[in-house]
């Protein structure tokens, strides 16, 4: 880790601790936009990391951005940081302008593409997307679709369409947006290679959930370790009981495994490999998410189950994020495909060869 990265992490940590409190997260789940948090991060140059300065960004590596995002996961930051990163990175790769404002992405399935029709003054846009993260707070939504002649992506302003408010298990905004032949004068429509863009988005968004979960797992372990040394039962701290020790060890195992899986996924992503490392990391960390939620609640007992306690802010996010951008079964099928395609020399080579 170099000095700049360390500095970034330190200041993000400070911002998160100061602003991204339990109360802010609770408020956000009731529908309030965490404007202060976004503005503070934007003001500190945290939004356009891993975009070169010449392109209007703040420089740095993907690893830097993903370290910041991991902290966002740890503190349950209620902002579309992941989506804004990914959208900007894609826009930058396509040579388009990036943004410091909150962006989000509507990742479509193959048969849910938007339609873009050009007329002389602008574009007529139709389409519907569900589970769009933070759509209600985003300034622009990146959608994928077709013009009359080619595949394209467009940045559209959600307020032009209809937004139905939805939430994931963690109370994070996951809205449905509908555009029914909406005319937009100023709207960027950029031709794309659909397969390439879809792959970029699927893997990049999976990486964001991987690091968000790694962050949340860190908090869960911290909270649980702390609780088990502070809470007394039968006259001694509960971590002195062998049954609690066994559970703590299992929890630590999930944390370390998830952390390592995440680090290797980030390493691959940094090297531009949208590959098996990301798949395996998402599968492993999804599993860690479920196990860690169970274990930490079990150790916390009833208190961790209450609204008052902070634990559930992380556990509910773990339950949500593991389902976002690929469950174990979905990525498992993709891994199986790769094993069948590339694994002719055996699973050992598949695992160890780069």
């Amino acid at each position, binding site marked *: 880790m170099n000095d700049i990265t360390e500095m970034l992490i330190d200041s993000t940590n400070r911002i998160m601790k100061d602003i991204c409190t339990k109360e802010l997260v609770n408020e956000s789940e009731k529908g309030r936009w965490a404007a202060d948090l976004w503005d503070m991060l934007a003001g500190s140059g945290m939004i356009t990391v891993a975009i070169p300065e010449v392109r209007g960004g703040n420089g740095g590596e993907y690893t830097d951005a993903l370290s910041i995002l991991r902290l966002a996961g740890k503190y349950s930051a209620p902002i579309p940081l992941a989506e804004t990163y990914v959208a900007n990175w894609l826009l930058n790769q396509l040579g388009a302008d990036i943004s410091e404002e909150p962006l989000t992405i509507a990742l479509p399935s193959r048969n849910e593409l938007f339609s873009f029709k050009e007329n002389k003054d602008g574009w007529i846009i139709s389409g519907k997307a569900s589970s769009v993260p933070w759509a209600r707070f985003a300034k622009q939504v990146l959608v994928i679709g077709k013009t009359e002649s080619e595949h394209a992506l467009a940045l559209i302003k959600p307020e032009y369409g209809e937004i139905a408010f939805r939430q994931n298990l963690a109370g994070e905004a996951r809205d449905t947006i509908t555009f029914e032949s909406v005319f937009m004068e100023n709207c960027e429509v950029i031709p794309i290679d659909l397969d390439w863009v879809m792959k970029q988005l699927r893997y990049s968004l999976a990486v964001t959930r991987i690091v968000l979960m790694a962050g949340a797992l860190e908090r869960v372990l911290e909270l649980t370790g702390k609780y088990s040394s502070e809470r007394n039962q039968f006259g001694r701290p509960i971590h002195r009981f062998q049954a609690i020790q066994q559970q703590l060890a299992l929890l630590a195992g999930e944390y370390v495994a998830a952390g390592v899986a995440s680090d290797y996924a980030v390493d691959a992503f940094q090297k531009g490999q949208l590959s098996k490392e990301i798949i395996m990391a998402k599968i492993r960390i999804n599993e860690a998410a479920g196990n860690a939620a169970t274990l930490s609640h079990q150790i916390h007992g009833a208190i961790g189950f209450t609204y008052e306690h902070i634990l559930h802010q992380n556990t509910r996010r773990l339950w949500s994020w593991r389902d976002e951008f690929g469950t174990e079964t979905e990525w498992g099928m993709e891994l199986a495909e790769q094993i*069948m395609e590339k694994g002719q020399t055996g699973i050992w080579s598949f695992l160890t060869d780069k």
Partner: protein
Amino acid sequence: MKSLQLSVVQQSEQVKALRREIRNFIQTEQEIGAFEPQCDSWLSGYSPEFSRKLGERGWIGMTWPKCYGGQERSAIERYVITEELLAAGSPVAAHWIADRQTGPLLLRFGTEYQRELFLPKIARGECYFAIGLSEPNAGSDLAAINSKATRVDNGWILNGSKIWTSGAHYAHYMITLCRTSPMNQENRHDGMSQLIVDLTAPGVTVRPIYLMTGEHHFNEVIFEDVFLPDEMLVGKMGNGWKQGMAELSYERSGPERFLSTFPLLEELVNALQSTGDKLLISQLSPLVSQLWTLRNMSMGIAQMLEDEITPDVAAALVKDLGTQLEKKVAELARLLVSSSHKAFSPQIEKLMSEAILHSPGFTLRGGTTEILRMIVSKGVIAK
């Protein structure tokens, strides 16, 4: 939780070349029929010829100083050789303990005489060691041992016994933890020392303990008035407990903790691949992802050991998670084999039996699951 942080290991070109080299070697050996892949080969695969061949190529004692027959290679290079040998199920049991534990122990605590005497022979694949820790009444509670070495002129007289000693029937020596002072109930760890016993010496009896499979890997070793010369004391007198614990910690996080059943997985995936059933293969994906993760953890730890950091907690986790995985391979294999309608090779049946019948051992050796978890939880709370 910084202490639980492991680093991402990058594989240099040199490491990649080494990997190609060992793979070629293994392939050739298999082709000439020198071995058949087996599960748990680091316990069961005894082949002095194979060990000698590895020794000739400089693949035993790889990280040791050249003056003692080593190669001064990096921990990651050693890791690559080890994992390739295990993944292929090759017969590495003969020299395993000498390479993994005895060498590092002697380098750290041994006398110059001992190093010169033993290390080059070990590195040539010609000298094997056994570990003498457990006793009949001291399993998990190692501090209860009471083998006793009594001081005499120019040496000691050893009496007592050791149990579960793997390879004592073919090993040349055993590093034996024993009491050189009477047991002090207040501090049971005091007064222990480590002594090297020549297993062919008069007074040493090696009795087989057959496994439930009928195999012979473990032994009871009995000492009756065995004379040990002065030169055979390892490290400091009275420092045996600390040294024995260090010896144990060398064995916790290596790839043998999750690869014991890998040969079955390899064979299984090949078989499933030939059925073309993607759905069946996809059921292996959580397991494959866990394996990939554990390997990354284990390599990260090897890297840190090289930098002289001892990540005890992470090492215990590799073993705990790893041995669970080894069992899962066997369980999943039987379900997948039975849900595919294809008839599978006798090779799979053989590997599956080995994996299942050896599985109780995975979680027992090198500290039980409960003890590992206690180490981990104490580590977590201490942070």
